[in-house]
């Protein structure tokens, strides 16, 4: 059977792409170091395939069709949008998919009982997926199953649904009849405001950030679900709901305390870094 050997959560701040370069600025050294720590773990554990849970930034999905959870079933993905090249200096990338695992997750004829997924066979991935992959696996040589979670176009799935997603991923991978070693990567941020009155002025809600680290450090799944009520999360910044993706990783790892749990300070708002290794 396949094995879920690790889960991790990282930021996807596209402003890092220009700023985090050698010689490494002092304030970004810790961010670069945490990316490297997760990157090294992926290599060390011999990961074969990455399940990447992130949120499309209103590029592929818009208010004309805004599904809650989308599983990518494509064999290939293009990555990066024109505006991301213009604004952030990002690069266009090509990524291999993993249709077999995607189908195990989303179902073939019938959706699984756990979640009414949508599936996509043609999906250009934005920085929410591309940035973590470029730092965690610069070779971009591992096949991925991208899963979009709607955290930007209300109505949003409740935090409990993100936990159910994590449990579903754990059970699906455990039942998948291969010897593949799977890593779950979730992409998001801590308290963050973009386009609102508190944007780009440090963390808009350090108290939320402290709680959000503690839920993972302590393995407090119920605390995380309860603490991520819509009104509370939106009060922490208008795009903070992408933090909720981390709940999927916590649930996938059985709700146990993370081995790494940190909101890393830099010139940008605090960056989430969480990691769980499967116990030896």
């Amino acid at each position, binding site marked *: 059977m396949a094995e879920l050997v690790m889960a991790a959560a990282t930021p996807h701040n596209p402003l890092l792409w220009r700023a985090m370069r050698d010689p490494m600025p002092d304030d970004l050294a810790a961010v670069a170091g945490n990316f490297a720590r997760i990157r090294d773990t992926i290599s060390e554990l011999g990961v074969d395939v990455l399940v990447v849970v992130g949120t499309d*930034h*209103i*590029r592929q999905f*818009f*208010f*004309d069709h805004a599904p809650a959870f989308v599983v990518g079933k494509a064999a290939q993905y293009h990555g990066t*949008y*024109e*505006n991301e090249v*213009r*604004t952030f200096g990002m690069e266009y990338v090509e990524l291999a998919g993993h249709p077999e695992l995607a189908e195990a997750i989303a179902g073939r004829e019938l959706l699984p009982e756990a979640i009414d997924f949508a599936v996509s066979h043609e999906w250009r991935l934005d920085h929410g997926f591309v940035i973590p992959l470029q730092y965690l696996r610069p070779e971009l040589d591992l096949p991925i199953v991208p899963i979009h979670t709607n955290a*930007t176009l*209300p109505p949003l799935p409740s935090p409990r649904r993100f936990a159910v997603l994590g449990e579903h991923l754990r059970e699906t991978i455990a039942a998948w009849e291969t010897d593949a070693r799977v890593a779950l990567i979730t992409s998001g941020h801590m308290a963050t*405001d*973009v*386009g*609102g*009155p*508190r*944007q*780009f*002025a440090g963390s808009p809600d350090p108290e939320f950030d402290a709680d959000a680290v503690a839920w993972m450090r302590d393995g407090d799944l119920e605390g995380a679900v309860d603490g991520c009520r819509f009104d509370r999360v939106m009060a922490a910044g*208008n*795009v903070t709901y992408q933090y909720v993706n981390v709940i999927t990783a916590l649930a996938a790892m059985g709700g146990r305390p993370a081995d790494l749990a940190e909101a890393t300070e830099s010139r940008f708002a605090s960056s989430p870094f969480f990691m769980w290794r499967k116990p030896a």
Partner: protein
Amino acid sequence: MTKYMIDKFMRAVEMSDDAVSRYVADPAGFVDAWLAGGGTPDLPTDDRVLTPEERDAFAAVDHAALYALGAHPYLLWHFIEAAHTHEFGDGFGWRDLVERYRADVAPHGHVDYIP
């Protein structure tokens, strides 16, 4: 109020370098051409409608007005960033735009942007 259409217009501009260039060159002309360029009954739906107030806010590149009208904040910031990037240079840069934008939208507080 047609928040959905505000968001649709911003996204149509911001995602395309060509559209950004044409909007920056002639905001009012671009908005009016966009409104006139929607779908027809025999094509996949592509409706385009803005109230006069919304149309004028886009013609004036008025981020405070668009914010107050319920533009999606994430789309609005990136739309405004795209519309002003050509101005960056000596004396006015990205950080100045950030500060100006924040000061202008702050008086409106939280606006319900859900269409």
